[in-house]
């Protein structure tokens, strides 16, 4: 936890410097009060102070029970999370080209097949049921315009 907090403090410090530098591109004051640069500048300063407090705290405070627990899960669990996000990214890439129904079908099928180790047939069946149901609810019933792919669906 302490290590994690240190990493977090360093990231926040970087963010704080970036906010301050960006704020310099805008007017700090306007005619009667703050300009567009006012808020980012002060938020950068506050974030910088907070990151220093967080960092110092990791050195000052006594390690508690929480500090000995790993914050991130093992590689297998991280792999599952990574794969879900990768599949979702693939879905976003293919959404307009392949169309809503096909991408959703592929998304669910691949999740069930790769992550949940379902047979390909069972995964496909679940993919068909879910993509069809979601399309019926949102596309047909709620009339949301989903993209149609080159297959015409």
């Amino acid at each position, binding site marked *: *936890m302490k290590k*994690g*907090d240190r990493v*977090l403090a360093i990231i926040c410090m970087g*963010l704080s410097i970036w*906010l301050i530098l*960006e704020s310099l591109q*805008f*007017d700090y004051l*306007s*005619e*009667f*009060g*703050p300009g*567009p640069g006012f*808020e*980012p500048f002060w*938020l950068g300063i*506050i*974030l910088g102070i*907070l*990151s220093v*407090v*967080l960092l110092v*705290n990791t050195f000052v*405070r*006594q390690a508690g029970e929480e500090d000995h627990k790993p*914050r*991130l*899960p093992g590689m297998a*669990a*991280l792999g*599952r*999370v990574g794969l*879900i*996000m990768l599949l*979702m*990214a693939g*879905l*976003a890439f293919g*959404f*307009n080209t392949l169309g809503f129904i096909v991408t*959703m079908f592929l*998304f*669910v099928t691949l*999740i*069930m097949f790769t*992550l*949940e180790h379902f047979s390909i047939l069972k995964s496909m069946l*679940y993919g068909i049921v*879910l*993509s069809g*149901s*979601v399309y019926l609810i*949102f596309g047909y019933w*709620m*009339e*949301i*315009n*989903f993209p149609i792919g080159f297959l015409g669906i």
Partner: protein
Amino acid sequence: MDIFANLIQGFHTILTPYNLWMATVGCFFGTIIGILPGLGASATIAILLPLTFGMNATSAMIMMTAIYYGSKYGGSTTSILVNVPGEGASVVTTFDGYAMARQGRGGVALGISAIGSFAAGIIGTFGLIFVCVPLAYFSLKFGPAEYFSLIVMGMLTIIFVGGKSVVKSLISAVIGLSLGMVGADAVQGAPRFVYGIPQLIDGIDFVTVVMGLFGIGEVLVSAEEHMKTKTVNVKFKDLWPTVRDVLDSKWAILRGSVIGFLVGVLPGAGATISSFISYGIEKGVAKDPSRFGQGAIEGVAGPEAANNSACSGAMVPLLALGIPGSGATAVMLGALMLYGLRPGPMLFTTNPDFVWALIASMFVGNIILVIMNLPMVPLFAMSLRFPYHYLYPPILMICIVGAFSVNNSVYDIWVMWIFGIFGYFMKKYDIPAAPLVIALVLGPMLEYNLYRALALSLGDISTFFTRPISATLMAITGLMIIAMFFKAVRSKRSMLEEEEN
């Protein structure tokens, strides 16, 4: 008389087949999603937000409040049957609820929880009417300076009260404020942090952020492992509490309802604190406090009533002032804005039909919930045994649909994707997401009111300290900061003393 007439009008609006159906659907889905371990009210509302797309604002908000109440009830089910609280507010319920379940009284615990929640919901909604209306009319006196001070106070309360670490809550809020700056600024219309991406000119869409942080982020945490839940079986015949059980719980329910409402009104305090206070009071007034933790029915009835009543309390600052007091009400505020409504005092004068229909829907929603939940608890409990790997793909799909349908654009799916990863790591590193969401909603209002207040006072900063209401709010904020500082110093001192000993 006005209140009564308006409420009758509200009932006329809600008691149409369509709106009743929406309230029922909201209660059902809210309970079902809220039952999933780890998913609290904010996540449930965020995930189910797309279901309201395409509806008129009144029906959409009726459904959202039904989801809100339903998710609270669903959260208690997991606390009692699985010992896994859906969110902070349900933690206390595990103390005696799970103990009751292990003694074969899980059904009774769920039953008394439903009855307590129903009674608290009704009491809380009456409280909402009698506090919200005068407060809304009083806040018509608010100018930009008062709003600025109120937003500062509200945000600080949320930060100080919620989360394990004040520093992390503050970081979360600063990030939320920073995200709120993206797009054209309120002063000169200058595009900030846009980097040539045209979609960013309008800012980062609230819905995509919320669905990413709460929806995708929570699902990722739950999907890490092949999750298996050990539930305690509940049979329909075991569900009804006896007359003795109800009599034993009646004062606990009443006390919990009052405490819940009063604490719920305070920004940031909300359901979690009220449930802990209620538990503490019940234990304090009990003839035999040693029963608590061993399956005392008052230990379930009081906190459950308190956390449900707090939901009504949390609607007070949202409706009367336009300030969300919790993550869940922040999501609801975002939803209101999505439908072109601006919560706050003017809502009562510009959209009275909407406000009163919403209030009436809380009465109706609570009745639907208790009618639905008592007989359906075994079914809801069964859904806990449904493997999680069947459940998370449809949740992800709903989030994707929701993000896409904001602007019919894949860009929003990407934004949600980024915030999904962000939400996952925030959860892992104990950074609360609620301050970020609240700051994202309130940030632009904060900046706009700061600018307007200074423009009206010709740049005189003392306007925040000389106007009576603003000065009072600022004084409360100052006192809170001082109290927090002393609390931190005291805890540090006691830690050092412990080390020396």
